[in-house]
């Protein structure tokens, strides 16, 4: 198993620059609680705060409509913004939107593009560090969840998951379980068993 490290713990006596490491001289230290893969020198955070990156998909809620822009709540210290000139659809306050991070400006506002409304459904908040596991390698976990519950699910890297239709309560249960057990082995198999045994109509996953 990979080593679990806490902030300030020595990772390697060579510089490894990544989002969650601190390099001092030739030493690399962890800055968050994470799993460290010694062989590859990769740090996988177990607890972390979301930091927006270009090209990521996020799920936000329209907070305010302005003359030529929308302010979007991203469940983060970063504020989102959609410029009307980049969006064909018009939004109203309270709308749930899925959008892609375009860039982050000097006032730490996240400019969003390709915004579109998500109608109905519900949002659950997940720790941002567990989002990669909910998506899975090449979307395996997400596809499995959608097949097993017949729900449509959208995942935002800012720690929000939108679920609509199908067996939404089963989907929620499964997602919360993935959050809980994100760092364990064989999770995809366990979620598969869970979905097959609970989805009522015996849907094969």
């Amino acid at each position, binding site marked *: *198993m990979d080593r*679990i490290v*806490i*902030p*300030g713990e020595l990772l390697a006596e060579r510089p490894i620059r990544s989002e*969650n490491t*601190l390099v001092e001289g030739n030493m690399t*230290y962890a*800055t*968050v*609680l994470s799993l460290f893969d010694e062989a590859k020198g990769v740090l996988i*955070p*177990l*607890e*972390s*705060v979301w*930091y927006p990156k270009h090209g990521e998909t996020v799920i936000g809620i329209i907070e305010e409509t302005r003359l030529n822009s929308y302010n979007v709540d991203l469940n*983060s*210290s970063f*504020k989102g913004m959609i410029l009307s000139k980049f969006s064909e659809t018009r939004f109203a306050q309270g709308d749930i939107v899925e959008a892609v991070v375009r860039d982050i400006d000097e*006032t*730490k506002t996240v400019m969003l593009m390709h915004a579109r409304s998500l109608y109905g459904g519900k949002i659950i908040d997940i*720790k*941002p*560090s567990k989002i990669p596991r909910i998506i899975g390698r090449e979307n395996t976990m997400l596809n499995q969840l959608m097949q097993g519950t017949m729900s449509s699910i959208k995942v935002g890297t800012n720690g929000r998951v939108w679920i609509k239709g199908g067996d939404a309560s089963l989907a929620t249960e499964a997602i919360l379980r993935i959050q*809980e*057990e994100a*760092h*364990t*082995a*064989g*999770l995809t198999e*366990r979620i598969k068993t869970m979905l097959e045994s609970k989805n009522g109509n015996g849907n094969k996953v």
Partner: protein
Amino acid sequence: MEGGEKPELIVNGKRLDGRDFGELRSLKIEAEVLKNADGSAYVEWGNNKIIAAVYGPKEALPKHISDPDRAIIKCRYSMAPFSSLEEHGRTGPNRRATEISKVTKEVFENVILLDRFPGSEIDIFIEVLQSDGGTRAAGITAAAVALVNAGIPMSDVPYAVSAGKVGDKIILDLNKIEDNYSDADIPIAISPRTGNVLLLQMDGSLTKEEFKQAFNMAKEAGKTISELQKSALVDPYRKLAEKYKV
């Protein structure tokens, strides 16, 4: 020093609660105890019971307090009205709580990587449910665990402990009665990786040698505290990983 008769604090070479001079009280730390907080921790240190919660980073409000270069920390230390039988048990931002909030904030300003979240704020809440001396040290120890639990990037996990002097003996981790009647009392917070001292306050007086002895005692005890902090954070993950080991 409090009024009234000074009690005998060391009887037959042992302290009132039967501890040795350099012995810590029993310490139990648990992480992630509050569902709604971004990070939280619960500490039972002797008779102290303390909950720490962390929120953020979030947008700094009101806007004029925000710093465009770095995150700001807001810290609130507070004692529950039922936390103590005596005068410490007043709740709300009194003079003492304001001071402890300030020094705690300054401890964490030195370990949190504030420049990663400009313009935002990080809230730290420390609630003392039951107090028995050394609550500021216990509060810092708990808040450090809560911050890691919240995923806030830090350069280290600091710990804090108090040391003091009774008669000619240097003692570690004072409880309330020792705190009230001791000749000196020093809470110390240290960043274990670098050895930097993040908090050092002193009531009473010590000679240079006595101070060195007290400081080393605190540093020695810090190894135990750091170990417990780490296992509070890591053990829940490790247990789950063991359970589903392939």
